[in-house]
């Protein structure tokens, strides 16, 4: 090799490059999203107030929200709303980073598993200035942390069984009576469908990756995933029973094998069993009915989860789809409150976004949009109306650290599906890991 530099200088050069690369790459790897935010000021005249509104979502939501903002600015000259949006995955990183940089948006979209984290650290503040007269008390109270209203629900969803009547019919299995069916019957029905429908079509998609199902079972038994004081309220037996259902479903081939279950879990509504016409049932949030129906091309139905009349009480509940919160450090609390008020209570806003942020929590507004809903959303509205009188209460706001339950649940359920943990061991691991997450 022809080399011009001397041996030592060249080696030192390599060493320096290598060490510098090591340092730079290692330490910048954790910096993640920058806090830089779009700020297209189009008003900006004298005396103008500018507030920033942060939300997550899809392109559709971004477009609709921009229309809503335009409408607000038209009706409220002097207030400019700066949009600050991203998809769900990037949203929490971005919000945390912006908060760390002292650049918290004025109006923040929140979710139940993060609400307490942000409230207890004083990032979001009291919202009693906003008019909430039209929102039912039991729904509004799901936005209270330590007695302070820190988030106002935009709309509600229910965690429910989505079923494909066409696959039931093809398999020659009757649709269940969802007021009466038990968890055992659910396993049984799924098994029958798999057998009758043949290769590549299953009875149900595994439900164990989402803690909402566990909460419903716990509530049916008079327990609750979390207590009002922020501790765990679910017993070991209930958790073990919850995971056992998955194992029973694998044993009678009512659901796919472990590997496929993991893959379907990662595939979203479009790639799910229901979405690809490869299964008859799946447990989803009610607002996903539209996306599932579109993907499957079938007319899907909403059913109550099994076990609603099997134990002490009903377990299903209304979960706020998301919340609007206001930064505790905003320089424009009045304008921010005005904007949230507009988002919640203006009928024109509701007509633009329909059920995109859940079935509106404001009952007058909900009434007004019913005729405008697409077929699937109409079904959701009917289902929720039917469910309403059966619901005993709504669960308390999940405690600090509750967002970690998503990853914990996926990890433990995978262990169970691959039979590396028995349901009893999984229950112990769940109590230990979730307990640690919400204690810290």
């Amino acid at each position: 090799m022809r080399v011009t530099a001397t041996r030592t200088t060249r080696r030192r050069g390599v060493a320096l490059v290598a060490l510098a690369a090591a340092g730079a790459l290692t330490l910048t790897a954790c910096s993640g999203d920058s806090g830089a935010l779009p700020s297209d000021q189009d008003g900006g005249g004298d005396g103008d107030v500018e507030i920033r509104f942060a939300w997550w979502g899809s392109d559709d939501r971004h477009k609709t929200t921009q229309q809503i903002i335009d409408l607000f600015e038209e009706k409220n000259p002097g207030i400019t709303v700066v949009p600050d949006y991203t998809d769900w995955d990037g949203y929490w990183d971005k919000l945390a980073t912006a908060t760390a940089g002292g650049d918290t948006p004025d109006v923040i979209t929140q979710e139940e598993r993060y609400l307490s984290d942000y409230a207890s650290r004083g990032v979001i503040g009291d919202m009693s200035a906003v008019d909430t007269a039209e929102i039912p008390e039991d729904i509004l109270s799901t936005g209270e942390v330590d007695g302070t209203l820190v988030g106002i629900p935009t709309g509600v969803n229910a965690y429910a069984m989505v079923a494909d009547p066409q696959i039931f019919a093809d398999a020659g299995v009757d649709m269940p009576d969802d007021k009466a069916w038990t968890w055992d019957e659910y396993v049984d029905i799924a098994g029958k469908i798999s057998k009758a429908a043949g290769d590549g079509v299953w009875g149900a998609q595994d439900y164990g990756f989402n803690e909402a199902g566990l909460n419903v079972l716990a509530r049916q038994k008079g327990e609750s995933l979390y207590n009002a004081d922020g501790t765990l309220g679910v017993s070991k037996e209930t958790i073990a029973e919850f995971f056992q259902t998955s194992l029973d479903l694998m044993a009678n081939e009512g659901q796919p094998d472990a590997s496929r279950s993991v893959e379907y879990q990662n595939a979203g509504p479009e790639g799910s069993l229901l979405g690809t016409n490869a299964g008859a049932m799946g447990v989803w949030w009610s607002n996903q009915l539209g996306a599932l129906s579109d993907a499957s091309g079938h007319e899907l139905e909403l059913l109550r989860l099994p076990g609603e009349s099997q134990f002490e009480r009903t377990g299903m509940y209304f979960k706020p789809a998301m919340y609007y919160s206001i930064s505790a450090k905003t320089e424009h609390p009045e304008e921010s409150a005005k904007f949230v008020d507009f988002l919640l209570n203006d009928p024109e806003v509701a007509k633009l976004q329909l059920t995109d942020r859940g079935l509106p929590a404001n009952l007058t507004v909900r009434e007004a949009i019913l005729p405008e809903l697409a077929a699937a959303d109409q079904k959701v509205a009917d289902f929720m109306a039917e469910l309403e009188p059966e619901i005993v209460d709504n669960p308390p706001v999940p405690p600090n650290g509750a967002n970690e339950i998503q990853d914990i649940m996926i990890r433990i359920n995978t262990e169970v599906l691959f039979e590396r943990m028995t349901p009893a061991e999984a229950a112990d691991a769940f109590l230990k890991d979730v307990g640690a997450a919400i204690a810290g």
Partner: protein
Amino acid sequence: MAVIQEVARTRGRGEERRKGDGRAAAIFLAPWFAGLILITAFPLVASLYLSFTDYSLLEAPSWIGIENYTRMFEDPRFFQALKVTFTYVLVSVPLQLAAALALAMVLDKGLRGLAFYRSVYYLPSLLGGSVAIAILWRQVFGADGLVNQVLGFFGVEGVGWVSHPDYALGTLMVLNVWTFGAPMIIFLAGLRQVPAMYYEAASIDGAGAWRRFRSITVPLLTPIIFFNLVLQLIGAFQSFTQAFIVSGGTGGPVDSTLFYTLYLYEKGFSSYEMGYASAMAWFLLLVVAGMTVVNFLASKFWVFYDD
């Protein structure tokens, strides 16, 4: 800058010109310095400070001394992350370098259309770290994916290559080996520098292809192998994207692809323990620096400099 001034001085240019050169250099270097200070040096120092604090991102950090560092050694998932990362690095890097060297040897034979092949084999290196490829990978290696369809054709029943905890990490290693383009190009450059006369002389003495490879190619290539080894080791320690996408950000199935950087990210942004995450980043820096030092010390025994 100092070097430029020195050169200017030794060449005996006028005072005015020298000043002008310095200013021009400073202007050209300014963006780079600004970047270094703002994007690298400042976060580096800040993260060192944060690693000694309890920092949730949402509140101001509070000093807790070395607690983050001591806590690491009581955290079972921290050890799982180390295990996954070391397995990944120690298996996939040698395999990747072997593949790169083998391909470089083939391309060095003077194939027609060399430029084309070079580009084709380099492509995976450009794409390998991308989100799109990780998603594609998830499809190809799925339980009903392309790989299993081909296996099914031969009567072999495949597994869920990325969804089964026993195979997911292996699949990610294959993905890393596949991105051999960058080291391959460097090897190719190295091979071009080996004088043909050595091979001719060896051939005349009756050395076969293997003997020529072992006694001429490898020794003369050791500095290049070493360079590639150091760079790829560092890169592999910091793998993130593939595991993040393939596992949906959880390091799953069952923590089998919980790369160190992935766990660090999870701690920082899901658990809001940025202090702990910063401490983990510094621990990784020490590990990587340690590996690099060991590498350099060991290189005395096997790297041969021909000058």
